[in-house]
């Protein structure tokens, strides 16, 4: 029987586990929240970014730490961590010549691509989970697990706060997975790991710039960068579903065409390098 996507996926994960690049990204996902909390503790008192959502509660409850990091991380940290693997996963194999090695075995290109896509997505999900988990743990150690004030000004119990933080991380995955899809497209098309990683980051930054250009306000709700704020809908009382629902259909508008184009290129390309 021909091996399926699960076999490819498992091996893609094993390859990721064996590469330093993987740990660079995941290490950053863990260290940044630790350093952030350490800085808060060392500076004490009223320190921290008080002008951003939940910034003023950083010393009141650990629940605020992952939420503040989600805000900061959307600018370049999470897109970069995501791009490190998504932008590399096809291009590096092309560059090293291993693509021809695996494409002449018994698994067809569709399954190879699907396995790589799932691995890149898994890595992005893991990176967000690590940041969220470390930020929450370190935040609770530093500030305790206390109720948090929602964006609507209501007090939310610590138990419900934990659930909302988890939900926020899940919503945050929508634009992150779209970024991973763009990274995969650039990885497949450019066949150059560095170009794909930097390109993915540049696309992400470009969309943020478009969002602040005057006269383009009508576009803003449909920009990928805007979807990075959709999680805030979870932290309103009652939950504001509008940005979440919009993210749920806008993000696939970026992800699906990127993945479809990447798959098309991958399936039809000549493997002539390496």
């Amino acid at each position, binding site marked *: 029987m021909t091996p399926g996507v699960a076999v490819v996926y498992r091996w893609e994960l094993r390859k990721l586990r064996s590469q330093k690049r993987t740990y660079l990204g995941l290490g950053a996902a863990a260290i940044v929240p630790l350093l952030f909390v350490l800085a808060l503790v060392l500076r004490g008192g009223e320190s921290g970014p008080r002008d951003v959502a939940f910034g003023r509660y950083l010393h009141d409850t650990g629940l605020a730490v992952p939420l503040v990091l989600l805000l900061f991380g959307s600018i370049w940290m999470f897109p970069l961590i995501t791009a490190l693997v998504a932008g590399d996963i096809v291009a590096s194999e092309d560059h090293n010549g291993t693509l*021809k090695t*695996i*494409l002449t*075995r018994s698994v067809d290109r569709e399954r190879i691509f699907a396995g790589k896509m799932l691995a890149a997505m898994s890595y992005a999900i893991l990176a967000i989970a690590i940041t969220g988990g470390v930020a929450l743990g370190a935040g609770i150690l530093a500030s305790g697990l206390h109720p948090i004030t929602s964006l609507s000004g209501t007090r939310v119990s610590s138990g419900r706060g934990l659930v909302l933080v988890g939900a926020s991380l899940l919503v945050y995955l929508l634009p992150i997975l779209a970024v991973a899809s763009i990274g995969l497209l650039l990885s497949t098309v450019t066949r150059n790991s560095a170009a794909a990683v930097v390109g993915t980051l540049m696309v992400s930054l470009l969309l943020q710039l478009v969002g602040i250009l005057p006269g383009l306000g009508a576009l803003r709700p449909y920009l990928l960068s805007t979807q990075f704020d959709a999680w805030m809908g979870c932290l309103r009382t009652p939950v504001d579903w509008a940005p979440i629902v919009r993210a749920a259909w806008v993000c696939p508008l970026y992800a699906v065409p990127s993945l479809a184009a990447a798959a098309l290129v991958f399936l039809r390309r000549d493997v*002539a390098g390496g």
Partner: protein
Amino acid sequence: MSAPPLEVRGLVKRYGDLTAVAGVDLTVEPGDVFGCLGPNGAGKTTLLRMTLGLIRPSAGHVRLFGRDPQLGVAALEGVSGFVEAPRFYPYLSGRANLELLAALDGDGAAGRIDEVLEIVDLRDRARDRVGGYSHGMGQRLGIAAALLRRPRLLLLDEPATGLDPAGMRDMRELIRRLAGQGMTVVLSSHLLAEVEEVCNRVAIIRRGHVVYEGSLAELRRTAGVAYRLRTTDDERAARICAAQPGIAGVAPGAGGGLTFRAESERAVGELSLALAEAGALVLELAPQLATLEDLFFQLTEERPVAVAA
């Protein structure tokens, strides 16, 4: 009648204005050790890439045991090999690389890892990272990876390139051994000695065209028998040779005298008579076997065949 292991018809590959493969026809029969011989850039690797389905032909087709590799990897059942140098994941061990490839092969390939490592003599280094392997070890791991699939047709691109003399000898010995087990082998090479030692049939490729396909013995025969001639007047002898029917490729000999090719022994006899009538007395007239190298250069550079010293 079963389909041949490899059949290529009218195969063309163009990259923009460059035609890398220009209408190649080939048939490799079961049990052949078939050499694709040609200088660098002749189109051998492009031909192998199309054979393995890695690139799409611009025209024509490839059939592997009657199956089209462009339709998917199912056509590669019973076929394996490598194009250019075999490539592996440098951060994984040799064994882990083989485990990965065996997983992608299925069909019990994982159970053959020890066996193939033994065949290529890499068992002791199997747990080392491939990044630390020498070029020769990488080539051997490439063969091991190919053998995991229990191929009936093995495609090897320049398998001895970059190896030291002992490594080249071992590689040839391995190919001979695999062929002896009934495997059909297609190898591309620009190393004449490699092809001469292990192949029973060759295709000589020049600028994307097959300029010769057949056995080496037939190649030597078609090239004609070369002769060395020394006379009392070589200058006059050269003019007579050039005008003589059945005589071609007249050139100055390396140690004096002349060399030429004759299409038959009768043509040589008639030449001898003509030389005597013209007063150029024959001092030496001896047949010389052209080497494969001579023939290769003749076919790939359109140069006259020179005789062995």
